[in-house]
């Protein structure tokens, strides 16, 4: 081996000491190019220039690539604070107490802001009204701040279109055109704000001929009038559902939409929760209604009445109560015998609980309200379950004046109309006429934030601030004040509505020169009106405290009342809707309400709690059990069919849903849909049924009518957007052949007509599933015994596993768990929307929902059981159960979903390839796959329909929309699975807080978004290892169970069984 140099060699040429090689190897820059050798004689590349050529090609290539790649690169701006504001710590949320007043809704809230952006609302538990509860609409409110359709500034009409204007233009127009003789009409919803009322009063003082017309889109005027007549107090009384042992609701959806549902739900549930399973007690709830409302679905007994029977049923109920309590009987009240029997039972229950029962009525008929007042009076409920102390101010309007306004406008008697945050051109059946008349008025100004139907008919748009940008106050109930404070500087060139009013009034109290004129005005107002009674040492202290708390409350004054209603006269004037083959109810939906939230995609995509349909209103038609194997819808209609609904001369084609609990001979459909100018999300969603509303003799809007005709199937809805397709869990029906009661659900589910011989299903395969546990109050003892025994059996079987598991590991440190009380859950959906807001859950749109691609992490399953035509209902919030033996985890090929040491089933989105095996293998079907690019986070084509991908910005990609995103939660890309994380970002925050405060974690530190949103406290989250925590207290109830416990998933979510207090004889 003499060829070796220092014992090392590189290759054979080194080894053999090839002379050519040796020559090259001694040069510092080795010019030896093997490429040249391989070319042989065919040297097309000149060797001498090869490096330069290479650089040329490289340069050209790089340049070309740079130009090609540089053209369309989207620019994303991230601007750091140059000077950091004192109050903002990046990454730390700041909460401001405020109030949401939207339509007739009120909710006292804490607004969560991140880096100056409001991104979420939480309930404010200092409020005596909403007591920390929220609703779906309140949760979705923050999104309306970032509505892309909002006016960017004041506008004036030129021709048919709005053009930009300045505030000076508008102020000049108002001041120039108006004088003290001008006939001015101010159209507004219920004004809950005392200070806004002051500003309006200043305006009307300046212009004596100005008249305020206040109305509620869904009216309670009859209730106000009846109370005015019967008690001399024109207000909604203060209802105490928590004090009532028997609750009777008559066409009143008090848990969903009626007046103050957050407050009522909270109170109602107080008497519904089973505190001691061994001595169970709960109230009994009867609901007398025609369609299945959210409240009716929670009732123990429902009495079905047709719209034409509502009035006579109230009379009958009055007489039945009067007979027992010694009141004077009245004429009328002819009802069919089965209704009479049921109402007798109601009366019996009411009479047994005099002074601790409550009858509420949602009809808009003064006589009916008077009779209900009389019933409550006979039962001695006033002063106990309802009183006129802290009366409710959420409904003050009276729509009858709108009709006279319409006539005045048509006759040219009106000089100016100010539309303040309401939309009569849509809300009223004569909306189109109203808009035409309004267009003819010389001066018309709307303060709406977006161009709605009424604003489009106005001459000027003077957009008000969004409530989250504005100052203000509210008095939802007498003596209960809520402050509204801005949580972000106004995004656009808008102006506070009250400030506009004061400017136009030329008010001297408004300091126009100050930075925030209305803020000063508001403070002065509170200083004058509320501070003196507060007992605080200084106004500054008082104001700071109110601002901090968001509420100021004074003890209600006791009001002595005497009943002076004329029941005899009332009995003759109860609503006489003529009986017809099909009668119809129009109702307010839980999600979009009267239609003012139509442009809110979160609410549009929230499935209706009862129908489980999103994006639109569906005609609920009754169904019958055919005795063999099917639930036949009216006229053979099936879910998602289109049918023609004709009332009078108008016909509309509406999608249909077969609604369990819808009374035979009646149909129902939701109000507030079919907006023609509802913005990007709201326009054209659903069908406008407002036009069919009628008015009674007193000019009050009626939400029931007769003479409806429903055609047979006219096709299928293109995008039938329901999120639940099987609705029942063991409804019973009569078998046609044997006349025996059978499990109709199973017969209808499994068996097709082609196999006619088989009539009975595998008994128990639906109802024996350990998903819903329920019992009647009278049977609780036996039920608990069975439940405990069955669970022991399941656990015994699960213990037989040959795999040891990791149970002992989860007994150390934190182990997160949840408890859901099915008795407290009313199904309102606040939690589902809160989850969307907290976790950046994308909106997918109607088409995608119709393809079952909804992305909700938390859904509320709804099942019917019991009698097929008048079933009971149970709601079950369903989210990731965070199984400690999770089926999803072991099937993921890439470990994208795995288990944390704290018992969380977690997703690593970056790692997820998207095989969807986890979703298939989830027994609870809570995993969601990003089928398309819902978040517009990628370069992929967006799913939004009807947009030009090149020209338009998708809704989800709009920078304004994206301001609502929670920066603590990843926005998921296309093709990954996502699911409930138990709000892991909140857990981390809570753990950090405890750590910085050098203490152990309390359950109160960590609350999931669904838990804080829930108005009734149905959801409790916490550490199962914290034996003193809130969660552990709840976990001890023998009514608890785990869904599908026998599958041995070892889920961390416990449900408490649903108990109802049904009067079985009724």
């Amino acid at each position: 081996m003499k060829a070796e140099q220092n014992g090392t060699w590189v290759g054979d040429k080194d080894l053999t000491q090839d002379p050519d090689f040796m020559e090259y190897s001694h040069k510092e820059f080795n010019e030896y190019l093997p490429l040249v050798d391989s070319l042989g004689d065919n040297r097309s590349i000149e060797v001498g220039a090869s490096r330069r050529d290479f650089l040329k090609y490289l340069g050209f290539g790089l340049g070309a690539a740079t130009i090609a790649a540089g053209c369309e690169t989207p620019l994303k701006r991230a601007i750091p604070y140059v000077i950091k504001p004192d109050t903002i710590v990046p990454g730390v949320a700041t909460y401001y107490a405020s109030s949401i007043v939207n339509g007739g809704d009120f909710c006292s809230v804490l607004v969560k802001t991140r880096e100056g952006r409001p991104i979420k609302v939480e309930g404010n538990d200092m409020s005596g009204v909403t007591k920390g509860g929220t609703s779906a609409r309140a949760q979705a409110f923050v999104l309306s701040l970032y509505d892309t359709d909002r006016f960017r500034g004041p506008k004036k009409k030129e021709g048919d279109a709005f053009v930009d204007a300045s505030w000076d233009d508008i102020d000049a127009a108002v001041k120039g055109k108006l004088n003290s003789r001008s006939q001015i009409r101010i159209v507004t919803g219920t004004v809950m704000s005392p200070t806004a009322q002051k500003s309006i009063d200043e305006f009307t003082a300046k212009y004596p001929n100005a008249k305020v017309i206040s109305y509620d889109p869904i009216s309670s005027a009859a209730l106000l009038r009846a109370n005015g007549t019967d008690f001399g107090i024109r207000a909604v009384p203060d209802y105490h559902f928590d004090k009532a042992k028997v609750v009777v609701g008559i066409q009143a959806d008090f848990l969903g939409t009626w007046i103050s549902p957050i407050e009522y739900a909270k109170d109602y549930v107080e008497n519904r929760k089973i505190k001691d399973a061994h001595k169970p007690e709960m109230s009994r709830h009867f609901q007398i209604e025609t369609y299945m409302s959210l409240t009716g679905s929670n009732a123990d007994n429902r009495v079905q009445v047709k719209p034409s029977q509502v009035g006579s049923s109230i009379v009958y109920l009055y007489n039945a109560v009067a007979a027992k309590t010694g009141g004077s009987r009245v004429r009328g009240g002819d009802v069919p015998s089965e209704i009479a029997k049921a109402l007798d039972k109601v009366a019996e229950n009411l009479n047994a609980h005099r002074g601790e029962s409550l009858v509420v009525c949602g009809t808009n008929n003064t006589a009916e309200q008077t009779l209900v007042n009389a019933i409550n009076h006979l039962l001695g409920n006033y002063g106990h379950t309802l009183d006129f102390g802290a009366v409710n101010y959420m409904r003050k309007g009276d729509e009858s004046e709108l009709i006279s306004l319409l006539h005045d406008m048509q006759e040219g008697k009106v000089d100016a109309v100010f539309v303040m945050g309401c939309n009569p051109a849509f809300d009223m059946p004569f909306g189109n006429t109203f808009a035409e008349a309004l267009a003819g008025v010389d001066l018309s100004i709307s303060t709406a934030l977006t161009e709605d139907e009424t604003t489009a008919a106005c001459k000027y748009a003077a957009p008000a601030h969004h409530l989250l940008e504005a100052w203000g106050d509210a008095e939802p109930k007498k003596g209960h004040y809520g402050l509204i404070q801005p949580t972000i500087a106004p995004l656009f060139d808008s102006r506070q509505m009250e400030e506009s009013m004061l400017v136009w009034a030329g008010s001297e109290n408004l300091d126009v020169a100050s930075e925030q004129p209305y803020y000063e005005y508001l403070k002065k107002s509170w200083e004058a009106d509320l501070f003196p009674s507060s007992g605080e040492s200084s106004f500054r202290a008082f104001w700071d405290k109110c601002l901090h708390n968001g509420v100021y409350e004074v003890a209600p004054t006791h009001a002595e009342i005497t009943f002076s209603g004329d029941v005899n006269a009332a009995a003759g004037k109860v609503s006489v809707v003529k009986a017809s083959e099909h009668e119809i109810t129009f109702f307010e939906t839980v999600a979009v309400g009267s239609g003012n939230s139509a442009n809110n995609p979160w609410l549009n995509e929230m499935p209706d709690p009862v129908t489980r349909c999103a994006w639109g209103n569906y005609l609920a038609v009754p169904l019958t059990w055919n005795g063999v194997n099917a639930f036949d819808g009216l006229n053979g209609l099936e879910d998602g069919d289109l049918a023609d609904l004709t009332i009078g001369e108008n016909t509309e084609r509406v999608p249909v849903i077969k609604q369990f609990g819808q009374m035979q001979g009646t149909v129902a459909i939701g109000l507030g849909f079919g907006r023609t100018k509802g913005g990007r999300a709201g326009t054209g969603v659903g069908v406008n049924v407002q036009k069919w509303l009628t008015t009674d003799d007193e000019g009050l809007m009626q939400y029931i009518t007769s003479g409806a005709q429903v055609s047979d199937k006219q096709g299928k809805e293109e995008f039938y957007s329901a999120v639940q397709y099987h609705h029942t869990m063991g409804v019973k029906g009569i078998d046609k052949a044997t006349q025996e009661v059978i499990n109709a659900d199973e017969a209808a589910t499994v068996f097709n007509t082609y196999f006619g011989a088989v009539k009975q299903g595998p008994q128990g395969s639906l109802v024996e599933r350990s998903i819903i546990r329920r019992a009647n109050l009278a049977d609780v003892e036996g039920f608990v015994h069975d439940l405990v025994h069955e669970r022991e059996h399941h656990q015994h079987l699960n213990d037989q596993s040959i795999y040891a598991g990791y149970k002992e590991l989860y007994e150390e440190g934190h182990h997160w768990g949840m408890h859901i009380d099915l008795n407290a859950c009313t199904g309102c959906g606040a939690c589902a929307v809160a989850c969307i807001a907290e976790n950046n859950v994308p909106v997918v749109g109607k088409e995608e929902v119709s393809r079952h691609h909804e992305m909700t992490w938390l859904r509320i399953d709804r099942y019917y059981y019991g009698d097929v035509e008048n079933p009971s209902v149970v709601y079950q919030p369903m989210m990731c159960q965070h199984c400690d033996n999770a089926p999803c985890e072991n099937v993921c090929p890439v470990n994208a979903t795995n288990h944390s040491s704290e018992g969380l089933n977690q997703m690593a989105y970056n790692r997820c390839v998207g095989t969807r095996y986890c979703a298939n293998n989830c027994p609870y079907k809570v995993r969601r796959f990003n089928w398309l690019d819902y978040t517009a986070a990628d370069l992929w084509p967006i799913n939004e329909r009807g947009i030009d991908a090149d020209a338009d910005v998708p809704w989800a990609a709009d920078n304004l929309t994206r301001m609502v995103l929670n920066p603590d939660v990843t926005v998921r890309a296309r093709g990954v699975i996502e699911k409930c994380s138990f709000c892991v970002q909140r857990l981390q925050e809570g753990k950090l807080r405890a750590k910085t405060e050098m203490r152990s974690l309390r359950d109160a530190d960590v609350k999931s978004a669904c838990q804080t949103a829930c108005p009734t406290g149905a959801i409790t989250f916490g550490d199962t290892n914290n034996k003193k925590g809130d969660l552990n207290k709840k976990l001890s109830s023998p009514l608890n169970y785990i869904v599908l416990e026998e599958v041995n998933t070892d889920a961390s979510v416990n449900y408490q069984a649903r108990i109802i207090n049904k009067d079985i004889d009724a």
Partner: protein
Amino acid sequence: MSAITSPIREPLVQGNKSYHDITVDLCTPTERTPTRAWVIAFIIAVSALTLGIVCILITIWVGIGTWNLNRTIGWGWDITNFVWWIGIGHAGTLISAILLLFRQKWRTGVNRAAEAMTIFAVMCAALFPAIHVGRIWIVFYFFPYPNTRGPLWPNFDSPLLWDLFAISTYFIVSLLFWYTGLIPDFATVRDRARGLRQKIYSYVAFGWTGSAKHWQRHESLSLILAGLATPLVLSVHTIVSFDFATSVIPGWHTTIFPPYFVAGAVFSGFAMVQTLMIITRKVLNLQDYITRAHIESMNKVILVTGTIVGVAYLTELFIAWYSGYVYEQFAFFNRALGPYWWAYFGMMTCNVLSPQLFWFKKIRRSITWTFFMAVFVNIGMWFERFVIIATTLARDYLPSSWSFYVPSMIEVGIFIGTLGIFFTFFLIFVRVAPVVAIAEIKHIVTSAGNQYVDDNRDHHEELVAETIQKVEQES
């Protein structure tokens, strides 16, 4: 000395072929210009392939949302097609490996085409796990490669990962086995070819000269590969069945799946071989090599495996009832009588009832009957996979999440595309390689007794006479 044709056994090769005849018959299809039928079939196949590629590109570009899968039914046509294609591939391996070990000499008539079919079917199958994921660009996360993420390994608990290994192993072994068999035949084609064809074939024949050493190594390698492939016949579909059997979903979670899937796979594989070979023997005029006896033998396998599958279906129903487990009971009632009842009855009719006709020898030996039955079986087996996947997922534990599924046009297009891929490759295959293994068929010509029949007999007797004469002279 007169030759006697065995009354019991038919000759495996008919037509009194001499070795030269065999060479000519089997090489000719690769040498002449394509027939019009081939050209039309090829155009159709390539069109289908193109459609498939377009649909796959749309899927990748727009998202899995172009398919009609939903939050309840995460797998539909994609995995149905995957399992179906994998199953079809099984006949090739069974014929080449297990029948080789069992010394079933009739296999030589069909093994080449069946193995080719295996490879193309596995290619079609392997496509689906790749394109059905949400983010195909990171599908390499499946592989346990050394990485900088910790290192982060795939989840070895997941049957999808086992699938990856099972299918890739299967594909590699099948490909090697197939190619090993092709080498002597390519050499035969090379020897007959001129010009460019000769160059190409000499390249792919790996310099085969037919020396004894070559033959010895060839035989050894074939035996080793047969030994490797034999367990694969059982393992691949067993592991595919684990995709379902290891889950907790009623209707999937059953221990009967591995044998039941393997039987079903062999069943559908033989049906596909029948479908293809009946056409091929006619078009390429190979009736003497792929005889009615071959078809009958394969029909017997179909009958046996079809009956096994039928027993498995009935066992599932029995267990569902016997278990007393409500979810399992419901799953099977729902399969048979729920919204997808037509799929279940399609499956039962095609897979269980129709093969029973093969008890009749007349039907077993009828080309027409066999062809239609084979198509039936393939339809039935597709239904079986659809029933197991979509029907089961559509209605599982929580009634609130029950759903329904019909494929989108994109999904249908991808399925048609895989048919296109399969037939494109198969049509190219019949043009470039001998469809019947020349070397192997020559092995069996003599042992089948052909030398004692008709013209061959005279030739043989002459040879014998000459030899005797020679021997006598020498002595």
